[in-house]
Structures are given as structure tokens and as C-alpha cells.
């Protein structure tokens, strides 16, 4: 299951960062990128024939550049817009990878993205969850990296209203 979802997850993440975020992600990380500090995470829960969630973790100051790119702005957008941008990226990557999870004709419902920054107490718990993901994509960009984790419920669907 892990290997069959990893390739489509990478494909979805790369195309989204390129086409929506105007970034050039790479699968090769430098030591500095690997050690970059966490800054924010966004989770999109989904329900349908299969339930689960997709979480993006950003490290190393990528978020401001990403949001600026999306808005076509020279300056870093205000924090609320940066969070919005990250949530939308998670939303798009999740929607793009779901056919690989449930099939081309599966109807999924995606919950609104929930964004946490590294200063919030819930962030560490969210980061710890990444170790149990079903598939993972790690992409280097600028001075940092993005980690995209896909969680798929094996038996019991994850309620959309459960706080992350």
C-alpha cells in the first residue's frame, strides 16, 4: 500500500508546488534542508469509500515565499494569507492524489483545511503523527523542505470533526 501511493503522492505534490506555488521542488535534499526547523502544517481530512487525511509540513521558511508566489506579490503576505495558501496547497494535493487512493470514479468529500504553525501547542502532536503515515513525499525547495504525508484509515473512518 505504501509503495503504490508514494509515486502518485510525489506526482501530485510536485505538480501542485510547480503549477500553483511556482516553486521548483527537488527530491534531493541538502543537509541544511534536512535540518531546517518546522514552521507550519496543514491537514485536509477526507471521507468517502476510504477515509483519511493528508498533511503538509513545511520547514525552513518556505511558507512566506510560497504564499508570495501564489499571490504574485513581491512582499511576504500577512500571516493569515500565508496560512490560507498552505491550506489551499494541501487541499489541491489531496484532491489530486485521491483517485490513486479510492479509484477514478470514487466520490470523496474533503473537509476544510486546518493549519497549525510551529508555535502552536498542537503542532508537535501533529508532527509526531507523521511517523504513522501510509505514504510520504519529501521535497526540497529554497532553503527548506516540504513533507507531505498521506494517512489512510484501515478500518474505521476518521470523523471529519475530530481536532488534529
Amino acid at each position, binding site marked *: 500500500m505504501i509503495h503504490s501511493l508514494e509515486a502518485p503522492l510525489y506526482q501530485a505534490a510536485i505538480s501542485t508546488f510547480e503549477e500553483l506555488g511556482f516553486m521548483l521542488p527537488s527530491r534531493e535534499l541538502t543537509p541544511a534542508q534536512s535540518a531546517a526547523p518546522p514552521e507550519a502544517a496543514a491537514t485536509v481530512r477526507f471521507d468517502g469509500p476510504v477515509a483519511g487525511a493528508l498533511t503538509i509540513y513545511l520547514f525552513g521558511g518556505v511558507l512566506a515565499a510560497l504564499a508570495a508566489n501564489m499571490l504574485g506579490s513581491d512582499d511576504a503576505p500577512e500571516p493569515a494569507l500565508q496560512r490560507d495558501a498552505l491550506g489551499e496547497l494541501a487541499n*489541491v494535493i489531496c*484532491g489530486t492524489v485521491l483517485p490513486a487512493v479510492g479509484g477514478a470514479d470514487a466520490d470523496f468529500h474533503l473537509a476544510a483545511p486546518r493549519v497549525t504553525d510551529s508555535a502552536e501547542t498542537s503542532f508537535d502532536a501533529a508532527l509526531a503523527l507523521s511517523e504513522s503515515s501510509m505514504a510520504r513525499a519529501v521535497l526540497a525547495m529554497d532553503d527548506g523542505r516540504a513533507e507531505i504525508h498521506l494517512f489512510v484509515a484501515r478500518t474505521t473512518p476518521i470523523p471529519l470533526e475530530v481536532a488534529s
Partner: protein
Amino acid sequence: MNFNVLVVDDSAVMRGMIVKTLRLSGLPLGEIHHAANGAEGLERLGEHWIDIALLDVNMPVMSGEEMLEQVRSNPETRDLAVVVVSTERSTSRIERLCQLGAAFVQKPFTPEMLRETVFRVAGVSDDSLAGSAAVSGGDLDF
């Protein structure tokens, strides 16, 4: 003719991206209105004359699909030109949206993809526009 546009998406960043693409596309724009969900979108339609609506699908309060069903069932709005801009990948759901008379642009989209679909829905071409379009093909540099 200037086109009045309604952009419906729960992401302010996505609404901004769509509006920016439209401004750079060369399409003659009039008023641009925003809504964060389908219910707000219907309110905007009741308040303003709209020529083209661009809708997301997955939104809180009211989805884009529900909004589109109500648009098509209202005699005053049933002929509205609609482009759905969404991450939706389900073939059956996309087909339902197309049967409701919407064009479809999948996220992530390139500016060229969005421009081409909006131009087609609006019934304009590069030749029909006075002056050259800001984007005529190739890469868009923001």
C-alpha cells in the same frame, strides 16, 4: 463589452490567483465580486449582474455543486456562464457538473488553462479583442 465576474472559493488566496489570472488574460473586465461559499455566491448573484461565475466545489456552508443546482433552477440565473475550478477528480461528479452546464478547470491549473476556458465560456477570442492579450500562450510571468 466588459464582463462582470463572480469568484466563489473558500480560499482568499485562490480567489486572488483567479482574479490575477483574469486581469492578465486580456478579457475585458467590469466588476469583480467575491464569495467564500455557495450561499454567499447566491447572495452576490441576487445583488449584482454577473456575466461569468467561477466556482470551487468543496466549500463550507454550501458547496459549488449545490450553488450551481440553485443557479440553474432560477429563471433569472439559469443561463449564467459558469466555470468550475476545483480539485475534483471523480468522473461522475465532473459529469454531473458538466450536465449542469458548467465548464471545468482542474486544480492545479496553469494560467493558460484558466484563460482558455474562460475565453471559451465568454465567447471571446484573441482576434476579437481590441489590442493584444497580456497572455497569448507560453509561460506567464507574474
